C-alpha cells in the first residue's frame, strides 16, 4: 500500500541533549498509528518536526513520496497535514466561527465552516470567543480547525488528555468518523485504552529512539517496552 508519511533518519538535539536519534518509520494511506513513550522521549518534538514547526538537524520527511523536509509549516498544512496541540491553542480573541473560518479560508480547499462546526458539535457555540471555551470544547475546536484543512494526515498530540469519560467517547467517535473517511492518523497519546481502539499499529519511543514498531498485542508482550514504558503488569491492561 502507498505510504502517506515517511520519517527517514530524523535527528534532533537541543544543545547537548539528543532528543531524537535517527528515527525511522512510515504511515500507510488510511492507516492510524499511535506513538507512545515516557515523558521526554521526543514524541511532541517528532510531531512538531513532521508539521514543520520545528526543524530537524538531519533526516527527511516525505508526504505521499514527496520530500517536504524544507517546506514551511503553512505549506505543509496546505499539502494536507492537519494537527492539534498538546495544550489546545484556540485564537482566544476570535469567535469559534472565526477560528474555523480562518482555517477554511487559508486551506484553499473549500471546506465549509458550518458543516465542520456541526460535525464537531460546536455550532451552537459559534459566537463564543475561543478563550471562553472549556478544555473539552477547546479540543473539539482544534479538531475543527484541523478538519477545515481537509487533511490527508492528521497529527494528534494527546487529544484525550484531561477529558472526562464522556468527552473521551465523543472525541473517539469523531476520530473514528475521520478514519472511516480515509484520513491517516498519527497520534501521540497516554490514554492507551482510547488509543488502542483507534490505531492499527503502535510505535514506542524511548530516549529519542524507536524501540518498538508493530501491533498492539506484540507491544504488550515486548520486554523492552515493558521496561521502558508500561511497567510490569500495568493495571491498564488487566483483563
Amino acid at each position, binding site marked *: 500500500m502507498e505510504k502517506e508519511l515517511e520519517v527517514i533518519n530524523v535527528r534532533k538535539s537541543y544543545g547537548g541533549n539528543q532528543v531524537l536519534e535517527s528515527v525511522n518509520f512510515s504511515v500507510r494511506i488510511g492507516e492510524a498509528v499511535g506513538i507512545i513513550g515516557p515523558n521526554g522521549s521526543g514524541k511532541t518534538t517528532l510531531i512538531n518536526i513532521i*508539521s*514543520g*514547526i520545528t526543524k530537524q538537524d538531519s533526516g527527511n520527511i516525505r508526504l505521499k513520496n514527496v520530500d517536504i523536509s524544507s517546506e*514551511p*509549516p*503553512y505549506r505543509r*498544512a*496546505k499539502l494536507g497535514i492537519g*494537527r492539534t*496541540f498538546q495544550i489546545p*491553542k484556540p*485564537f*482566544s*480573541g*476570535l469567535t469559534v466561527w*472565526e477560528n474555523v*473560518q*480562518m*482555517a477554511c*479560508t*487559508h*486551506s*484553499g480547499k473549500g471546506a465549509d465552516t458550518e458543516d465542520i462546526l456541526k460535525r464537531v458539535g460546536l455550532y451552537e457555540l459559534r459566537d463564543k470567543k475561543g478563550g471562553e471555551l472549556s478544555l473539552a470544547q477547546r479540543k473539539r475546536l482544534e479538531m475543527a*480547525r484541523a478538519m*477545515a*484543512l481537509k487533511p490527508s494526515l492528521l497529527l494528534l498530540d494527546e487529544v484525550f488528555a484531561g477529558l472526562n469519560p464522556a468527552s473521551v467517547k465523543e472525541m473517539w467517535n469523531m476520530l473514528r468518523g475521520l478514519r472511516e473517511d480515509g484520513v491517516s492518523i498519527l497520534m501521540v497519546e497516554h490514554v492507551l485504552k482510547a488509543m488502542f481502539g483507534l490505531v492499527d499499529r503502535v510505535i514506542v519511543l524511548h530516549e529519542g529512539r524507536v524501540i518498538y514498531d508493530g501491533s498492539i498485542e506484540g507491544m504488550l508482550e515486548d520486554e523492552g517496552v515493558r521496561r521502558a514504558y508500561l511497567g510490569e503488569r500495568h493495571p491498564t491492561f488487566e483483563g
Partner: protein
Amino acid sequence: MKKRDLILLAGLCLLFFLPSLLSPYWLRVIISTLFLSCLSYSHNLLFYFLGYPAFGGIAFFGFGAYVFSVLYANLSYPFFLSLLLGGFSSLLLSLSVSPAVMRLKSHYFAIATLALQLSFMELAENLDITGGTKGIVFKLTQQSNLISFYAFLFILLTLLTFTLFLEISNFGLTMKAIKEDETTSLSVGVNTMAYKSLAFMSMAFFLGLLGGVFSFWNAYVDAPTLFDPMLSVKTFFVLTLSMSAPLFGPLLWSWIFEMTFELLWSKFLLLHGLLLGLAIVVLILLFPRGLAWKRSWKL
C-alpha cells in the same frame, strides 16, 4: 441614511471647510492633531493588528521625508509625484529590511527598528544630499498650511478606511490570529511572514507619505526634526490609550494630547515639558486600557 451616517457626513463636511473657519494659529493646531492621528494610525497597522511595536518606525517617516525633500526642494519635481516617491521609497526600504526585522518579536523588534532610526539619523547628518546638519530649506508659500491640511486629511481618511477594512475583513482577522499565536496560525495554513511583511510595508508607505507632507508643512527638514524620538513617544502614548478602539481611538486621543500640549505650552512656557510628562502619567494611570475599554464603548 441612518442618523449616525448623517452625523459622520456632517462632520466630514465641517472638516473639509474647517480652514476657512479658523485662524492661522488654530489651523496649525488642527494640522498638528491630524499629523499625530496619521502617525498613530500608521503605527497601529502593525501595533494593534499584529502586536508589533515599531518604536523606531519614525525611520520610515524620516526616509520618506528626505526623499520628498530632495526631489521637491532640490530637484524641483512636482509635489504629488515627490510625495508618492517618498512613500514608495519607504515601502521599498521596509521591503529590504523586512526578512530580517519581521522575524523578531516584541522588544527585540522594537529595538531593531530603533537601531534603524538611529542609523538613518546618523546617515542623514553626514550625507551631502540631505544637506548634512544644515538640512534642507523649502520656499514657504501662502498656501502651505492649506495644502498640508488637505494632504493630512486625505491620508487620515485613507488610513481610517484601511483600518475599517482590516477590522471587518478576513485579512484583518488573520492578522489578529497571528498576533495571538503565530505557531497556530502557521499550522492552519497562514503564510505569516507574508502578512507581517505586508503590514510592515503598509506602515512604512504611509509614514513615508507623512514625512513628505510634514516636510512641506514645516518648510525645513534636518535629522533631529525628522528622527525626533518625541514623535514615537507621542504616537505610542496615543496608541496605548486607543488599544480597545482602533477605529476612532487614535483620533480622539491625538486630539486630547494636542489640546493638552497647546494649553500647557501657552500657559506654562517654562514648565510645559514637566507638566506634559505628568499629564501623560496621570492619563495612563486613569485609563490603563484606554477610554473605550468597555465593549459597549468600542468605537
